[in-house]
């Protein structure tokens, strides 16, 4: 009996949905936004992939130039100075679904053998206007537009029936108000579920994203996030106010969670954790490197040898200028700011930690973090890339230093042995589950609030 009533109510919702122009319009708009988001995310990541692939040509051109310049083999010092290699941050196959911070941060770093701290923070040619406007990827559609869609189809669940007068007809049948509301929410949930899964699958297949366990996490997170917003609608709907009140308060809550809260958190972070270490580090590093020219060569080399004892027995510096001495004080410049660099990365990490802690209060912010973490496009992924670029620079040093210290000429064929770099961004697994739990708690909280309100608000129907 009960499930038959439920089935009837669901069927009626389906009939109404099919014939209600506005509902159909909202659904089409959500789909259109979703498709555009998938397209534009795909276009952005494809562009990045093309540019990343294009770096190979620049690299080869540079090698040809070197070979033409030094046809009979070169001093590795000259190669280290004029030749550049690239550290590449390859996007994860999911990146196009949630571009995250990938548009704001450089996705490759051009590296020479010189001090790495002077090269690590170079930025990319990006239009700040575009960055400020943000990307229109599938994540944007899910974080921002999906809640608006949910609000649009749910805000008048009760009030429309009451205002139209159909509520009396339904409730004079053996159906309780709770059953009616449940059926209506269930129908909308099923509709959202279908749309969200459809869009996600389209996004995943368009981008040929690897269908690993993240498929379930993505869909699970999205469903949880949808449930949270359905819960918010439930809280407002059980107050049994009119449609205009519902629309205004739900949009207000959307604004609160999606805009006002993140914006406020951002202010808190900027004020509580100011970050001037980057500037300090750059200034200090320049002083250290340039001081190298004036320090006694022997002193520089002795300091260098404490880090590289194996070169201790190589010939002393005799000439006015020798490349190995030059690179030695470049490296010492890096090492002198090592502690500042650690502080800087630590502060970036603690900023990202504070961000995720504060975000727990705002499900949209948490959901955005969740999606970015899942797609390997969050700030953590960027820090990993920078760390891997530093490691790559170390490998380059390990490759070139023997040429410098053992006076080996650098031949054309030696380029084949130069270490190459391609960092693959990966999902930030540590951030995924806390975000899921935060969203689950948020959902349970609104559900509880709604249930309490339902008990408090008079059950009479007038």
């Amino acid at each position, binding site marked *: *009996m009960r499930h*038959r*009533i439920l089935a*009837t*109510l669901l*069927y*009626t919702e389906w*009939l*109404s949905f099919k*014939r*209600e122009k506005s509902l159909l319009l909202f659904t089409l708009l959500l789909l259109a936004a979703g498709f555009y988001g998938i397209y534009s995310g795909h276009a952005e990541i494809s562009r990045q992939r093309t540019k990343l692939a294009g770096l190979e040509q620049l690299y080869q051109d540079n090698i040809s130039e070197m070979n033409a310049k030094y046809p009979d083999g070169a001093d590795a010092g000259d190669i280290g100075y004029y030749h550049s290699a690239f550290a590449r941050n390859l996007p994860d196959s999911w990146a196009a679904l949630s571009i995250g911070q990938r548009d704001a941060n450089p996705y490759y770093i051009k590296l020479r053998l010189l001090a790495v701290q002077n090269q690590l923070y170079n930025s990319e040619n990006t239009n700040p206007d575009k960055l400020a406007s943000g990307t229109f990827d599938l994540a944007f559609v899910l974080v921002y537009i999906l809640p608006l869609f949910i609000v649009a189809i749910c805000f008048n669940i009760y009030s429309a029936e009451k205002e*139209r*007068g*159909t509520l*009396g*007809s*339904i*409730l*004079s*049948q*053996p*159906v*309780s108000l709770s059953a009616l509301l449940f059926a209506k929410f269930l129908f909308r949930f099923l509709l959202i579920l279908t749309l969200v899964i459809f869009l996600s699958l389209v996004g995943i297949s368009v981008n040929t994203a690897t269908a690993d366990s993240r498929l379930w996490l993505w869909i699970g997170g999205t469903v949880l996030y949808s449930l949270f917003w359905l819960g918010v609608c439930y809280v407002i709907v059980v107050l049994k106010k009119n449609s205009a009140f519902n629309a205004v308060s739900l949009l207000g809550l959307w604004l609160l969670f999606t805009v006002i809260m993140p914006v406020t958190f951002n202010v808190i972070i900027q004020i509580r954790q100011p970050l001037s270490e980057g500037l300090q580090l750059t200034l200090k590093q320049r002083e250290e490197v340039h001081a190298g020219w004036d320090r006694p060569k022997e002193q520089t080399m002795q300091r260098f040898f404490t880090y590289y004892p194996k070169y201790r027995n190589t010939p002393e510096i005799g000439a006015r200028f020798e490349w190995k001495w030059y690179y030695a004080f470049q490296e010492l410049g890096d090492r002198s700011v090592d502690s500042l660099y650690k502080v800087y990365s630590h502060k970036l990490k603690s900023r990202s930690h504070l961000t995720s802690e504060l975000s727990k209060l705002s499900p949209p912010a948490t959901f955005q973090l969740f999606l970015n973490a899942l797609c390997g496009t969050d700030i953590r992924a960027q820090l990993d890339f920078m760390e891997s670029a530093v490691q790559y620079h170390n490998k380059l040093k390990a490759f070139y230093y023997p040429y410098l210290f053992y006076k080996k000429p650098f031949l054309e064929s030696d380029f084949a042995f130069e270490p190459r770099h391609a960092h693959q961004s990966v999902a930030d697994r540590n951030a995924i589950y806390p975000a899921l739990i935060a969203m689950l708690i948020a959902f349970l909280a609104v559900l509880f609030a709604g249930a309490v309100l339902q008990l408090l608000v008079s*059950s*009479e*129907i*007038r």
Partner: protein
Amino acid sequence: MEFVLEARGLCKSYLENRALKPLNLSLQQGEIFSLLGPNGAGKSTTINLFLGFIKPSSGAAYINGIEVARNPVEIKRYLAYIPEQVVLYPNLTGLENLSLLSCLAGYRYNKQELRGLLMKAGLQSEAIDRYTGGYSKGMRQKVGIAGALAKKAKVLLLDEPTSGLDPKASNEFSVLLQQLSEEGTAVFMATHDIFRAREVSTRIGIMKAGELVHELRSGDMDANELEKLYLNYMHD
């Protein structure tokens, strides 16, 4: 004999305002009871109490012997309700609306049976498959009646059923009610229409300021006398 609709000391007050003073009333199968009274006299409150939409402050309403306030869902198997403005889902057809209502009531009819019910309620056959958004009040009422027929309602609650109906539709409606009554349905309606009430009812009540001030059998007096009696009460 068991009563299908009964009020025992049924009473409703909002803060200081007593919307309904203790009401005692009982209807047997096939009886038609008309409740007369000005706006705000407590007629709709009485109906809402029988429907369980609002809860009594004291006393109780019973449908088919079951207390309404404690079994708000169960009693709806036995009653049908036709509000003043019967509102159907405008983007469903008459047939679909009836199908929805009867399914919710727990009945399964095929299209032919539903069609038959609508025809029995007097709906023109060409209207059955049109969206009810374009229906007149009389047509929507007929769908409501069909709903009552579909669920084999023992009690039919009506709120101002004939207001806004043209005389022909009004007459058709009275005929329908009598048919239902002959089949054993008890009808309880709130109305302003003294003439129709006198014509169609078996019993009539006059309500004023939340109190049932007079009750009579419709055979007791003619329409003119009834109007005089009504106005008398109102002038006090």
